[in-house]
């Protein structure tokens, strides 16, 4: 039993989108721009050509925040969305009625319809694939060329993520909503 989370050193992100590709490949995510478990958000650089401020173009990798108080879990009418033994927010395809309430309730736009299983899919921290095989990294982490992502057990004081969160300042997205995300952005 663990309490999995992820730290993101987002300022190192170069927007290569290798994480998006690795996620789709590893987890068999459908093709198409709308079908993604993880994504890299970006701002256009400020200013006008040729005086563009390239430093202002920042990138923010994101995905399901694996909230401890997940709104998508609260609103699910059939408990299709649930916390597994590692605190990962998962979907039970047998129970999902495809009402889309979780899509509307998620503040992070992290859920989408998988047309093959006809369920609302989301990031599972590779629980069905890499973690199930005994590996201890997610696909997005393993492929990242600039080591943006660090995945691990938040309850283990010796883990790399715990060390990072002890020693680096960090913030969470939309923390004011009280969802208690387990994705931490290092500053």
């Amino acid at each position, binding site marked *: 039993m663990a309490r999995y989370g992820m730290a993101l050193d987002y300022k190192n992100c170069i927007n290569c989108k290798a994480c998006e590709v690795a996620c789709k490949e590893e987890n068999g995510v459908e093709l198409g*721009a*709308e079908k*993604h478990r993880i*994504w*890299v*958000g*970006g*701002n*256009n650089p400020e200013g006008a050509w040729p005086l563009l401020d390239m430093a202002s173009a920042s990138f*923010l990798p*994101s995905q399901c925040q694996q909230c401890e108080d997940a*709104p998508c879990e*609260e*609103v*699910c*009418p*059939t*408990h*299709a969305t649930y916390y597994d033994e590692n605190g990962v927010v998962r979907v039970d395809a*047998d*129970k*999902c*009625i*495809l*009402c*889309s*309430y979780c*899509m*509307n*309730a*998620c*503040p*992070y*736009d992290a859920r*989408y*319809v998988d*047309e093959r299983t*006809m*369920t609302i899919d989301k990031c599972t921290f590779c629980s069905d694939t890499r973690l199930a095989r005994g590996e201890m990294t997610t696909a997005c982490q393993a492929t990242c060329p600039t080591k943006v992502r660090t995945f691990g057990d938040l309850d283990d004081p010796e883990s790399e993520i715990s060390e990072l969160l002890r020693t680096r300042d960090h913030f969470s997205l*939309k923390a004011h*909503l*009280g969802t208690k995300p387990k994705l931490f952005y290092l500053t």
Partner: protein
Amino acid sequence: MNFIKKIIPMRDFTLKSLMTFEKTPLNILMFILTVGLLGAFGWGVVEYLMHSHEAYNVTRQHPWGLLIAMYIFFVVSSTGLCIVGSLGDVFGFKDYMAMSKRAILGSIVTILAGFAVIAFEIGHPITMLIYNVLSPGLTSAIWWMGTLYGIYLTFMIIEFIFLMRNDMKNARIFGLTGLLVGLAAHSNLGGVFGFLNARTISNGVFYPTYFILTAFITGIYLTYLMYGFRYKMNFPEEIKKGLIGLAKIQTLLLAILMFFETWKMMTGIYGGMPGRADVVEHILHSGGFVYGEVLCGMLIPFIIMLTTKWKSLNLYVYASFIGMIGIFFMRYDLVHDTQVKPLQMMKITEYQLPPKWIEYFPSAAEFAIGFGAIGIFFMLYYFGQKMFDLDGGDH
């Protein structure tokens, strides 16, 4: 058939008599309209069965569309007719006694039309029936709403049976219980939107209360339309008194609704809170809100009723038709406005601008199923009129 007649008194009818009606221009128009809408519904269902949700224009950012709006439209109508029906048989207001049977039948057929729509919006309706019982999500407003509406429909049917048997004591008991369950279900439907912490435009107490208020308003509009059609504008005295009373209540309710809406918009825009104030501004500049909700749904019927001092019943039937157009826009807008602000404000694919507003326009299949369900309402109501004596009720 005799067994059913023992439970609920019915007129004698044959399949031929059910299909026969007086060939007036209005009746023929309604017949063509009903058949056309039912045909559209059927086509929409076939499209959905062949293409699943791909037949709809809903997206990741806008997962709820016209079908959710039409479901709300129908269940709001049902709750409203239940309230109007309860005025006589539950609360004992004599002027409204004669309306109870027709209003309660209306509340049953409108919610059935709503269920017909939602069956093709929910991806797995059978799974819903199973796991709503086996694995109930008690923190979910959708679970409460769906479950309570199921119980509500049962009570409405039982109330209708007792009304038809002229057993007013039992009709009152089941009517009151059904009304309370219906109000709880309906405010939970408002809660489905009110509980969305991430959507600041909808989050809060407004929708659960607004839904009850607009349900009553919708019920009165529909009562006018049903009686306008039934009596072809020549209202008998026992109905006139009730309709005049309903017009007075409607004027008051519309005034309260305009007051509520004004304050919702003012508190929404005040302080310029991002994600709320900009959405309110967006709403205030949309045609659906200005021409649909405000003009058709509220102002025109309000001004007509106020200026004619509740005497021009025929005019109120037309005002109610305009009002129902406004009610449709209220339902459509509340679904769309809830989702219009993107939750993800950064661009996530190259060669695009960051999203500003989420665009949505229903697909042909959504229009066909959503509006086609009005045909289901017309058909069920027509058969109800033919099978039951809905006029005797002044107890």
